[in-house]
Each structure stands twice: as structure tokens, then as C-alpha cells.
């Protein structure tokens, strides 16, 4: 990666600035609808029923879960099909590496721009969640960090896979058998303690779980040493995956 990675980031953000309206619903409105349905509607049932444990309303419990989960769900498709598009279907990556940008810069630009966009979505989500009463602490802005890191991990990892493929046949499988299970079982909607005992330890392998923990500690004000540990896991994941993706982009895009 060279300093031209900033040009790659600029390119991605410029495209986003011109086309964001087309994805405004899925990027900004959809997570808020989920929050209204799950936090307010379903939350009414949960709070009348057994409850999510502790003193948290269900709305307060699920809001940080949805915030983090959205960072994963919204970037996964873009990293898989978007990268295949850039390499093969539309081929703009070939154009980019014909400039002083290296293949690593193209990859780095994608990862950074995913972080920026997820950060914007997370800020919008937090504001609405706070208005609805789902945010209990002034530490809440830290949750944005969780969203940014998750988006970067997701993009770095899935782009590293996509750039090595010749077609998109595996992508739906990754979404259905990888991304969606993570979304549903990483402590997003119910505490991981409820998972079967065999599965509970497995959850440490889920990047989303680490992100949900950071976000939930932030919005509920339960910041402690573990919050830092979970954030460090996400940073470490980005650092481990980046070289793998870089190699993939270099092999595929070096003319």
C-alpha cells in the first residue's frame, strides 16, 4: 500500500457521494425500521415477558446489536459482488491500477471507504436510537468505532475471497451460511448465554460478537477492560487479513 491509497479512498467516496441516494434506504432507513420493529414492537413483548436479563429494556439491548450487525450486513454484499464487478464485470480496477495506484491501494481504498460509510450509517442510527430511548450512556459514540472496525474486517476478508474467484457462485452460499448465521447468533437479538452450551464458546470466533460487545458496552455505559479486548480483537483481525487480501489483489490486478 502506498500513499495513493488515499486517492483510491477518494474515488470510492466520490462514487458514494454521487450515488448514495440509490442506497439511502438500505443504508440508513432499513436499520432504523429494524430498530422500531425489534426494539419497540417485539421489545414490548419481551419486557412484558421474561426479559433480556439485567436491568436493560429490550430496546436498549437490541439497539447496539443492530448497529453492529448492520455494519456487517451492509458491507458484505458490496465486498463480494462489488469486488467481482470491479475485477471482472465492469473492470474499473484495471483502470485504477493503470495509474500510480497499486493493487494494494485499490484494496486499501475499499476497506477504508467501507469504514467511512459504516461510520456515517452508525452515527445516523445512534441519533435515532437515542431519540427512541435505546441509548443509556454518554459513551455511546464509541459504538461507532465498533461499526467502523466491523465494516473494515468484513470488507477486508470478503474482498480477499472475492478477488480470488472466477465467478460469483459461492457468494450466495457465503451470505446464507456465513453472514446470516453470524447476524442471527452473535448476541444481536438475544444474549449468547442462551445458546446451547456447545455453541457458546464458538461465538468468540464471530467478529460480529466482538463488535456487538463493544457497541453494547458503549451504549449502556458498561465500559471496562473487556471492551478494549474486544476492540483489540477486531483491530488484530483487520491486520491479519489485510496482507492476505493484498496478495490476492496483487496477483489478480498486476498487469
Amino acid at each position, binding site marked *: 500500500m502506498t500513499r495513493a491509497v488515499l486517492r483510491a479512498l477518494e474515488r470510492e467516496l466520490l462514487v458514494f457521494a454521487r450515488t448514495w441516494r*440509490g442506497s439511502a434506504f438500505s443504508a440508513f432507513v*432499513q436499520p432504523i425500521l429494524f430498530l422500531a*420493529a*425489534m426494539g419497540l414492537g417485539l421489545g414490548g*413483548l419481551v419486557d412484558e415477558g421474561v426479559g433480556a436479563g439485567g436491568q436493560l429494556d*429490550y430496546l436498549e439491548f437490541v439497539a447496539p446489536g443492530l448497529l453492529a450487525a448492520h455494519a456487517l450486513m451492509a458491507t458484505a454484499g458490496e465486498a463480494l459482488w462489488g469486488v467481482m464487478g470491479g475485477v471482472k464485470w465492469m473492470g474499473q480496477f484495471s483502470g485504477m491500477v493503470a495509474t500510480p495506484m497499486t493493487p494494494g491501494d485499490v484494496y486499501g481504498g475499499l476497506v477504508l471507504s467501507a469504514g467511512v460509510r459504516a461510520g456515517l450509517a452508525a452515527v445516523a442510527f445512534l441519533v435515532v436510537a437515542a431519540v427512541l430511548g435505546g441509548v443509556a450512556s454518554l459513551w455511546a459514540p464509541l459504538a461507532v468505532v465498533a461499526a467502523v472496525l466491523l465494516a473494515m474486517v468484513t470488507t477486508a476478508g470478503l474482498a480477499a475471497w472475492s478477488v480470488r474467484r472466477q465467478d460469483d457462485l459461492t457468494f450466495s452460499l457465503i451470505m*446464507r451460511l456465513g453472514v*446470516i448465521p453470524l447476524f442471527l*447468533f452473535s448476541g444481536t437479538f*438475544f444474549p449468547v448465554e442462551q445458546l446451547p452450551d456447545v455453541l457458546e464458546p464458538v461465538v468468540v470466533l464471530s467478529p460480529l460478537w466482538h463488535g456487538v460487545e463493544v457497541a453494547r458496552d458503549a451504549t449502556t455505559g458498561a465500559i471496562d477492560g473487556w471492551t478494549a479486548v474486544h476492540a483489540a480483537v477486531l483491530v488484530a483481525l483487520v491486520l491479519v487479513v489485510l496482507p492476505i487480501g493484498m496478495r490476492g489483489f496483487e496477483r489478480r490486478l498486476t498487469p
Partner: protein
Amino acid sequence: MNVSAVLDRGRIAPPLDARTRFLRMTERNVVGYVRHWPLLVSGVFEPLLYLLSIGIGVGALVGDVAYAGRTVPYETFVASGMLATAAMNGAVFDTTFNFFIRLKYAKLYDAVLATPLEPRDVALGEVTWALLRGAFYSTAFLVTMALLGMAESWWSLAALPVTVLIGAAFASVGLAGSTFMRSFLDFDFINLAITPMFLFSATFFPLSEYPDGIAWVVRLTPLYQGVALCRALTTGEVELGLLVHVAYLAAMVAVGVAVAGRRIDALLRR
């Protein structure tokens, strides 16, 4: 040499029966998907994973909910909502995103129309395939519900044809809608219609959680008809009033087919 002599020698394909030739379009999809069977089979898991997460995971936090004058476990309540939603999602996805990719990018229909098949056969064949696929997924979901004890009545068997009706309603309206799409950017409108229905059609929580005015709006939405039917059948709370929901869905089929039929011809021959 006359035509029948040429046919006898097998030089050109025999004419296809105009009434059944749309099945060639369906057959094409069957062959294609059987080759990529993991893609087909993996579709079974998505609604099941939702059922385990929201039904059993969140269900443990909820306990029972009031329904039809008694209480049912939350997982039973939400399972029927998932069943109807999965039928809608599958049908909409097949007739919008998939249809559009095939139309604009894969140019599949250009190839199809170079054969004796007509635009009408394309539409019928694609919808037939969407319904077959949907019936396969619904069967898998219903069997799972039964195994987990969430199907409380033999009426649950009738939920299968109901999911096919839900699929037909959304497939025909989806296909009609696709013909108005200009580019992929317009597909955010589909999410705009589908996501609120998925979340707010009494799928995850009963109408009683809404203020009265909003509850009435929900009662008028298309997916609510399917959810109400599936829920009544899987819990055995069957009554004559359910036919209203059937009529609503049947009307969607009629309107969708009429609009799609008129527009698809122009679109494909362009």
C-alpha cells in the same frame, strides 16, 4: 420436399404445443439449478436460522403471547409469520432481481426468444419455477415446524397451498413491478416495499402491540393476509373469515398477471 418430410428426417425441431411450451422455460431453470444444487439447498436454511434465532432465542425472553383468545408459545406464533414471509421473499427475489439480471445482463431471454418460445412463455415459465422452488422451501419449513412441535393442527397441511398462493401473488406483482424498473438503482424501491412488510405485518409481534389506527393499516397490507392465513392454519384456529385473505391474494394474482402480461411483451420484443 414438404414440411412433414423435413420433420421426419429430424432436420428442424417439431412445433411445440403452445399451451405447455412455457414448461421449457421452467425446465431450463430446473436443469440450471440442479447443476448448482448447493445454491438451491442453502435457501432452505435461511428461514430456519431465523426461526432458531428469533423464534427460540428471543422466544425464550418472551414466553407466551396471546392469540385467538388463548396463549401460544412465541416460537409457534413467529414461525407462521416466517413461513409466510419466506414465501413472499422467495417469490419477490426470483421475479425481480433474478428476472432483471437475466433480462438486462445475462441476456438470457434474447436467447430464449430465438427459439419457438414467446414472451408469455418466459413469464409463465419463470413464475412456475418460482412457485416450484417456493413450494420446496415451504415444505422444508413446515416439516421443521412439525418436528419442533410448532405445528399444532392438521390444518397445517393446508398451509402449503397457502404459501404457494402467497408466492403466486407476490411473484405476479413482482414481475409486473420489474417491468417498470429502469436500472438497479430502482431496486431499492423493492426493499422499500418488502422490508417494512417483513417487519410490521404482525410477523414478529401481534397487532395488539400497535395503536388501533396503525393496526388497521397493517390489516390492509398484502403480507398480513399471508401471515394471518398461515398462523390460523398452523394453530388450528380456522374460521370462515379467512377466505377474505384468500380473496385478497387471489386478486393480487389477477392484477399482477394482467399488468405483467401487457407489459412484458413490449419489453422482451424491444
